[in-house]
């Protein structure tokens, strides 16, 4: 049973950040690495992600991207409702789908959709959006504590780990009951800095939840994105750390902290 694990989501084809995060996590003593899905999107060369996952033995579950790609769907099923958000989501998905091999798409379909783990006596449940819906957005400012408690109860768990929104957070729901959005490592958490963030969990009497920012060669990623003719808006996010797309889905508080 591991005492320290690293968990992240949303690689978004950012294989450079993925490698930096895995190294950092190992360096901090993480005994196991977990990814909560969305290996592709946004970044360049989706097929470069899988070898890194294998090298560092990262255990992944499906995100909506893996579900859509493996089932050969026409769109990412990201769950956006605003046309502007959907416009950029479409560009992202079409590029990723075109550049992902058929073998990789099939492999994505073999990944589990959820994972359970005993972590120092805590029943951990990992899911992409939420345990009930792969593309549910769980934001800090709009997920009430009573709602999250109900979710833990319904799904018989003490520690729920999700991603999908791109913004990490931790809500304690009383003695040894926690929900953590582990964030994504494919793009920065809309904070004006280029680092990406993963989550380091340490078990013990009290659960320790650390959000670890990691620097990587983001200028190289930006260069490769430009070479692949990915939208300038995406490249700006990588360089500046501010989101330029998929902003309309943000709740009021999260949007207030956003530059755009």
């Amino acid at each position, binding site marked *: 049973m591991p005492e320290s694990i690293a968990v992240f989501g949303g690689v978004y084809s950012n294989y450079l950040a993925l490698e930096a995060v895995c190294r950092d996590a190992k360096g901090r003593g993480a005994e196991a690495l977990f990814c909560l899905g969305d290996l592709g999107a946004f970044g360049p060369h989706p097929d470069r992600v899988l070898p890194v996952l294998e090298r560092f033995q990262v255990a992944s579950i499906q995100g909506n991207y893996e579900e859509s790609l493996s089932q050969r769907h026409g769109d990412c099923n990201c769950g956006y409702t605003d046309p502007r958000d959907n416009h950029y989501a479409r560009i992202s998905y079409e590029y990723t789908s075109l550049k992902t091999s058929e073998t990789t798409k099939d492999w994505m379909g073999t990944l589990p959709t959820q994972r359970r783990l005993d972590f120092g006596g805590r029943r951990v449940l990992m899911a992409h959006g939420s345990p*009930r819906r792969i593309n549910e957005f769980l934001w800090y400012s709009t997920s009430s504590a009573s709602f999250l408690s109900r979710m833990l109860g319904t799904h018989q768990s003490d520690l729920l780990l999700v991603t999908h929104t791109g913004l990490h957070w931790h809500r304690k729901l009383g003695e040894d009951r926690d929900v953590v959005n582990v964030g994504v490592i494919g793009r920065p958490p809309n904070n004006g800095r280029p680092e990406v963030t993963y989550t380091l969990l340490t078990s013990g009497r009290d659960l320790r939840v650390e959000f670890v920012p990691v620097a990587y060669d983001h200028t190289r990623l930006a260069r490769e994105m430009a070479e692949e003719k990915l939208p300038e808006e995406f490249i700006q996010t990588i360089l500046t750390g501010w989101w330029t797309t998929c902003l309309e889905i943000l709740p009021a508080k999260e949007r207030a902290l956003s530059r755009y």
Partner: protein
Amino acid sequence: MMERQVRACPTVPLISLDTVWFQVAGTLCNLRCTHCFIACSPRNHTHAMLSLEEVRRTLKEAAALGVKEYYFTGGEPFMNREIFPILEATLRLGPATVLTNGLLLDPKRCAKLRALDSGSDYSLDLRVSLDGWGPEDHDRIRGAGTFQRAVKGIQNLWEAGLNPVMTVTELAVGIASPEGRKRFLRTLRSFGLDKPRLKVLSLFRMGAEENRDRGYYSWERLTESDVIDPEKLQCGSGRMVTSQGVFVCPLLIDHPEARLGSTLSESLRPFELAFPSCYTCHVQGVTCRT
């Protein structure tokens, strides 16, 4: 008048009670919009305002049921004298969104709202209705001078540090197209909002709208053969609390058949989609949520 249909219609189960709406101002409003689907006005007392005590009671029940988020509408919510303590009590438990016409949003109220927002972990969101590109369209529906006053309210919110969502009905011709949206966002920027947020709402052909334009045609109904998706319909995850009990959704509070009980717990049963507005929600994918 809307009539219940006799044909068989689909039924939607409540998958999960995530959203609770409060008809916090009842059907009382300082405006008399010609497209209002529940015909709110200064004299419509069909549903009374909710008191702080009534809201508290429901919040307690809602929290026990694991509700995720709360919405407040009317009528005009800021006509309710207890709206601030009501929002304060709500924001201790979860996120709150208030739907308003913006007319009562003076700098003092906006500062109070900002303080409530800053004091909570949860989002306090405001949604202000605009019905067109400018005073010509908007005022025809909402009354003379209301466009300028609503814009002032929006600017007061923005200056207080709050960034409301503008809710625009399809009466703003062309708003649903990508160009229309872009143009509207430009209009909002011209008011000084540099991160404009926009939600486009469908029209419901009931209430005052029946007289402004037309009611529903008899064929605008769901039938047994319509394949509905409870996850996409707001009645699959929400309920509306009014002074007269708990209704299936914000649209149907004038219809006794849509009243599902006197408490949330009594209202968790499935609902028959027998109303023409159900047709609009299904066909156009409408949700009153932001």
